[in-house]
């Protein structure tokens, strides 16, 4: 472990006063995604769902030169029966300021982890414990998606939140019950789902705000320094627009411009609502969409509808171009997202939106989207073939 860390880094680690966040969880439970989310860094380490990626515990100081927060990522528990991680765990227990337990929400075989948590509390009865219940989408049915706005608060009422599948609520609570026997204050539970944009589950940082709130309770200084606004344009692009565009392209969910509006279940309307909410504009999908459509103008919408109809005819009549339609759907969704981002940002800032600028933005985004789509497709392909050398 120490060989891979250079000497300066080690010294900085030892002398740093920054608190240590101990990540405890099985391989692929989502530890690395949480680190990536907290530090706003690349997710290259975020591997696929079935092969151990993290082979040994890693130290991670952030930022590296003057750490504000230090992560201690113990090797995935229960990855392989041959490996014992007890030494690392004893070390981690002595150092940690906060224990962040990461469990997939559908995983009830977590006795090994509970044992470690219980033992840690026996030795340090004040150690704050956060339990991140990850990968909520594993409990979704065919037509389910993330419930917006985020409904969970860590209490037992999470079992019956509106829109959340019953079985998911049951599993979530069953998993929490497993932590009942632990001494001291009950852990703080945070259901979340940090996905890669290519997975097409929007928003890709579902539950991040709640995680930051909980971190603010346990590590107020750290949260104050590291927390970013979820409304930054880049954040909205990667966490909201990209997943929605990927999902729409995958499902071939072309928006239906009927009577100046979209169907409520469509990917695009949901995206617009999420963007508006992030930028602080309240309202349900009808008001928000009508507002955006009005700003774009009726003529624009007619042109949009015609283009959509042409695509449908091509698709049905010639039988070609499912890939073309997917690419087109991606571009449309992305462009609508850009328009919404621009429009609601301007509105939130109190500027009157300019129709011409909006349309220009739309056309520009449509052009950019081709490149984005290629990139996303490449990532999807890499997602499948990436070799996570163990």
């Amino acid at each position, binding site marked *: 472990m120490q060989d891979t860390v250079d000497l300066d880094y080690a010294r900085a680690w030892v002398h740093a006063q920054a608190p240590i966040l101990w990540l405890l969880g*099985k*391989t*692929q*439970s989502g530890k690395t995604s949480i680190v990536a989310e907290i530090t706003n860094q690349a997710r290259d380490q975020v591997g*696929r*769902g*079935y*092969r*151990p990626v993290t082979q040994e515990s890693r130290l991670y100081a952030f930022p590296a030169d003057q750490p504000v927060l230090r992560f201690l990522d113990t090797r*995935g*528990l*229960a*990855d*392989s*029966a*041959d*490996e014992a991680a007890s030494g690392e765990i004893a070390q981690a227990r002595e150092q940690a300021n906060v224990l962040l337990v990461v469990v*997939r929400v*559908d*995983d*009830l*075989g977590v*006795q*090994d982890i509970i044992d470690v948590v219980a033992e840690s509390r026996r030795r340090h009865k004040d150690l704050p414990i956060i339990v991140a219940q990850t990968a909520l*989408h*594993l409990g*979704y*049915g*065919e037509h389910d998606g993330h419930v917006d706005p985020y409904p969970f608060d860590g209490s037992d009422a999470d079992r019956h939140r509106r829109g959340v599948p019953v079985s998911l609520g049951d*599993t979530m609570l069953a998993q929490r019950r497993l932590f009942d026997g632990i001494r001291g204050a009950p852990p703080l539970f945070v259901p979340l789902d940090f*996905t890669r944009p*290519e*997975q*097409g*589950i929007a928003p890709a940082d579902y539950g991040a705000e709640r995680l930051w709130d909980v971190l603010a309770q346990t590590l107020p200084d750290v949260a104050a320094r590291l927390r970013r606004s979820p409304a930054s344009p880049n954040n909205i692009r990667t966490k909201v627009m990209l997943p929605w565009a990927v*999902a729409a392209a*995958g*499902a071939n969910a072309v928006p239906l411009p009927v009577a100046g509006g979209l169907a409520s279940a469509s990917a695009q309307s949901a995206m617009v609502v999420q963007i508006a909410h992030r930028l602080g504009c309240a309202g349900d999908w009808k008001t928000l969409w009508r507002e955006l459509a009005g700003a774009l103008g009726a003529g624009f919408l007619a042109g949009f509808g015609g283009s959509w109809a042409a695509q449908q005819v091509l698709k049905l009549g010639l039988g070609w171009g499912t890939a073309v339609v997917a690419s087109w759907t991606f571009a449309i969704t992305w462009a609508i997202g850009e328009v919404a981002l621009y429009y609601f940002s301007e509105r939130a800032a109190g500027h009157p939106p300019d129709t011409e600028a909006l349309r220009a933005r739309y056309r520009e985004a449509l052009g950019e989207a081709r490149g984005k789509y290629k990139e996303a497709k490449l990532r*999807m*392909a890499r*997602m*499948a*073939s990436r070799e996570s050398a163990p």
Partner: protein
Amino acid sequence: MISSRDPLWREHRRALGTLALIGVLVAAPWLVGLGAGIWLMAQQGWAWYWWIGTVVLLALAFVLWRRLFRPVAPVNRLPDAAPGASAAEQRARQALRRRVEAIRAEDLRDVNAVPDLILGAFRDVAGAYSPDDPVALWRFTLPELLLMAGDFTQWGRDRLLVDYPVLRHIELSWVVSLVGLGGPIGKLLSLYRVLRWVHPSSALAAELRGRVASQAISSLGDSAKAQIGVLLVEHGGEIAIKLYSGGYRRRADELLATAPTPVPDTAAEPLTVLLAGQRNAGKSALLNALLGKAREPVGLLTPTTEGCRAYEFHSEPTGALVLVDCPGVGGTDGAKAPWLAQAARSDLVLWIAAANRADRAADQRALAALDAVTGRDVQLRRIPRILVLTHADRLDPPMEWAPPYDVEQGQRPKEEQMREATQAACEQLGVAPEHCALIAIRAGEPPWNLEGLYQAIERVLPESRHKQLERAMARDGWLKRAKDAAASIPAASDTVRDFVGRTLGHTASGIARKLGGKDGGKDGGKDGGGAP
């Protein structure tokens, strides 16, 4: 040898004389023609050509003859152990192979060497089944031995009659007489007959004809000797494996008078298949998908471990099965877990695990425990298993589910993920890829790729049948032994009564003879003799 041949010779002399006369009558014209031809050629001055031609042809024939009987390596046909064979069987076959490869013609100098060869094979097998056991050779029961001897004889008989039906009409006395003819003609004749008989498959059968073989072996070529030795060891070894693995134990029940019908070698009853896996792995969903809504418990027919339930199942590729559903494998239950106890009584384990998970430690521990069920006893086969990977639909990209998917060849991201996930799970859990099945069961949709599961089961069926036979043949429990002991009591008591009766009868007659006259003695003797 001579003493026994002489009476036979006398017996057949007249018939042989007539036969010789017939031969002379048939051959006379040709012999006369031959002489006349040679004489004619001599008159024409061609005799030299004839002589030279004759010598050349004979030399050629001699060369061919030598070529025909050049020593060749014996053919080795010892089959490999079937997949899933017990460690003991694999060791036994290795030892037999070594022995077969070492066999040379000298090992079969005469018929007395035959028992040594077979005994060697038996020692190999017995040692493999009971290592470090001084009395390994005697680890069987008398009925098993009788069955084995019967089996061996029948094998020889069948080979002989199937290969040479004409033998049914040849009295052995004739064979013995002819083979025993002295001089070079007799030698050639016996060699010819032995070569006809000693077809590789029936060499041992010929061997069993004792007297014929004892005379023939000395005149056999080296290749034939070695081949016979190999056959003896191979077949002897096969029979020894069957004996020491308990193959005759089950059939020993046929010898009981109460056994209604012979037990066939292939089991007809359905295989017992255990479904097990971690909690939340998708076991119940799979069971529902296999059985449909109407579950038919068969608990009375198939006694299960506490907490487990058995269901009847039938499908075209797999045939009839009994599916046993045991509670999920928890983290803390040890070797006494219901599923493990049930596994020991199952012919196949379907181990169910989620394809989209990376934490395999619990599965690895459970499968190691499953190996330990049979690992303690070298005679037991490993319980065959199939890795059923569920939740294929939740592999990346998670929200996409648009079957059909081509797991073998497809290029879509999901298809590539399916391949990689299957491969990774099989590797981590030590299951051969052909014994892994990836499935998906979604509410309100037909299950995906159950055919793949059926195919995997089909591939493992032969192994499971072996396991089922093994379980059926397993050493009987105390109850059965007590029952057999009780069943033996009447016969034993009859014998004792008989013995006592006879002894008493003799004593009584002796006393009567002493006390009374000759008549009383005779009567007493009659009584004693008539008792059996």
